[in-house]
């Protein structure tokens, strides 16, 4: 086995570009392992850990690109590195706008596009404040995708934004719909009457997609970042966004999705909801309705969309554990009782809000479930693979499904896991075929478990629409072909997973379904 590396000095590439180069390296004949990383301290540690570090690469700095391969022969390693260089030089040639080289700064970009009104910022978190502040001071609204941004920086940015009457969506804002334009990871939904204010990404995606399935659409979808309703940030952007939707003529009903607000922020939030003058649905995952106050408070993302559609369509609505209890009974009958299955549930999520929702829905039924960290006494675990802790220097798992696929395969070898709980998020900017890698891993994991006489049930839900580039029906079919049980929403997938582990819950949830 030969280990070879190459350093390209002053050759900064973003995390998505690096992922593509690494994939290309791994795809070359004779290559066993490969990496394409900028020479930051954390990436040097990753290379050491993977056994891919070499003296040459250790000297590389954060703006230098390191390519490293372990291959069967010297020739194979050389061939792979040459192919990667070729790919990189092609990328440089086609990037930029038309024939002119891309500007190197925000001010350079503004000279090319003087009427710009929004900056989309997705640089590494350590550098995000500087770029976002510059954009706000030039009068641009900000869509801040970057994560790992300190909360103090967030509070500063939002203060600046409010003083200028601008949106600062994020940090860690994955999705927005503004004036008919989709920003970040977004599902293709029709324009419509529902205005959504949401903490970050997948909650907004789940509700927008569900609304589309119910015949509605989105007027505006404004992200705020997951920490907006904390005491430190004070609900700055949520309150500002609600005010904007109040006066937006295209918005007939408002949906607010968030984590539980800080006790000091809640009264201001309630007062803003009370003065909207439009019906509002509130889903603060983990918080019930306050004693008094405006808005229809619901427990799940699916219910938020259902309630909003019903309000708009002037139809009655009430929450239900399963949309089709008969289908659930049929699935349970087909699967039979959990003979030989492990006792534990392993939730592997790419969507943070979906992971959080699963945790809240399942703990009352399964007992304590460790979130992200490994649990000592609990057989269960839910992991949000898009969490900051798992994405430093790496693309989000919605862009690179391989990271999760490895976790799924490991679950096949685990004695604990009986039920795998999964999400799959489609839409613009997401991987072109996320179900492909996941389905393959699920199939392998199930086969691995079966070899040892264990049964591993995969339960999944898909956030997406028929108009998404990946196509909802095809992605669902791929997962089903791999033996996964695909439920119509995350909440229903969670309840179905709970039923597999605690069959007694059927009494409560499936009463009356033949």
């Amino acid at each position, binding site marked *: 086995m030969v280990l070879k590396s190459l350093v390209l000095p002053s050759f900064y590439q973003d995390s998505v570009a690096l992922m593509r180069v690494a994939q290309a390296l791994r795809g070359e004949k004779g290559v066993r392992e490969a990496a394409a990383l900028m020479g930051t301290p954390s990436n040097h540690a990753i290379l050491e850990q993977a056994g891919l570090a070499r003296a040459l690469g250790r000297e590389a700095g954060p703006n230098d690109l390191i390519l490293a391969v372990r291959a069967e022969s010297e020739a194979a390693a050389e061939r792979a590195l040459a192919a990667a260089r070729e790919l990189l030089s092609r990328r440089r040639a086609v990037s930029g706008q038309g024939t002119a080289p891309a500007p*190197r700064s925000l001010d350079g970009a503004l000279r090319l596009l003087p009427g710009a009104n929004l900056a*989309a910022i*997705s640089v590494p978190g350590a550098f995000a404040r500087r770029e976002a502040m510059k954009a706000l001071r030039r009068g641009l609204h900000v869509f801040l995708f970057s994560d790992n941004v300190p909360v103090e920086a967030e509070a500063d940015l939002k203060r600046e934004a409010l003083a200028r009457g601008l949106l600062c969506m994020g940090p860690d804002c994955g999705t927005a719909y503004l004036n008919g334009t989709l920003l970040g990871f977004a599902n293709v939904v029709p324009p419509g009457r529902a205005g959504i204010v949401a903490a970050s990404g997948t909650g907004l995606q789940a509700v927008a997609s569900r609304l589309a399935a119910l015949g509605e659409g989105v007027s505006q979808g404004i992200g705020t970042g997951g920490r907006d309703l904390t005491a430190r940030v004070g609900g700055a952007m949520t309150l500002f966004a609600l005010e904007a939707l109040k006066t937006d003529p295209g918005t007939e009903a408002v949906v607010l999705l968030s984590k539980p607000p800080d006790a000091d922020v809640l009264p201001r939030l309630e007062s803003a909801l009370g003065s909207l003058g439009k019906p509002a649905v509130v889903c603060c995952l983990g918080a019930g309705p306050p004693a008094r106050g405006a808005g229809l408070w619901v427990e799940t993302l699916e219910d938020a969309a259902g309630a909003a559609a019903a309000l708009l369509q002037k139809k009655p609505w009430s929450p239900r554990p399963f949309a089709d209890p008969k289908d659930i009974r049929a699935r349970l009958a087909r699967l039979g009782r959990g003979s030989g299955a492990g006792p534990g549930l392993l939730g592997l999520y790419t969507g943070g809000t979906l992971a959080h929702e699963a945790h809240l829905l399942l703990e009352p039924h399964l007992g304590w479930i460790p979130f992200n960290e490994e649990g000592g006494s609990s057989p269960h675990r839910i992991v949000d693979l898009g969490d900051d802790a798992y994405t430093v220097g790496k693309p989000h798992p919605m862009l690179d499904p391989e990271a999760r696929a490895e976790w799924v395969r490991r679950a096949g070898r685990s004695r604990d896991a009986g039920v795998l709980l999964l999400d799959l998020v489609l839409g613009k900017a997401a991987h072109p075929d996320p179900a492909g890698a996941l389905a393959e891993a699920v199939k392998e994991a199930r086969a691995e478990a079966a070899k040892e006489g264990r049964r591993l049930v995969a339960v999944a839900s898909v956030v997406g629409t028929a108009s998404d580039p990946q196509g909802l029906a095809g992605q669902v079919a791929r997962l089903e072909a791999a033996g996964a049980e695909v439920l119509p929403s995350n909440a229903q997938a969670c309840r179905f997973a709970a039923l597999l582990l605690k069959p007694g819950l059927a009494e409560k949830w499936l009463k009356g379904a033949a």
Partner: protein
Amino acid sequence: MSLIEGPLRVVNVGLELFAKELRAEGVEVVHVDWRPPAGGNPRLAGLLERLEELDQQEG
């Protein structure tokens, strides 16, 4: 929405993927060929930012 008049016109700083998606949607977008400032050293970049802040306050 009165907050933003007319269609979005976007400056993209960071993942080039987002600029490509917007262009495909027909949105006017300029992508910035961004590199980490101060040679990618976050501490030096922080100092640089503080100097810029001082400039801003004085200017």
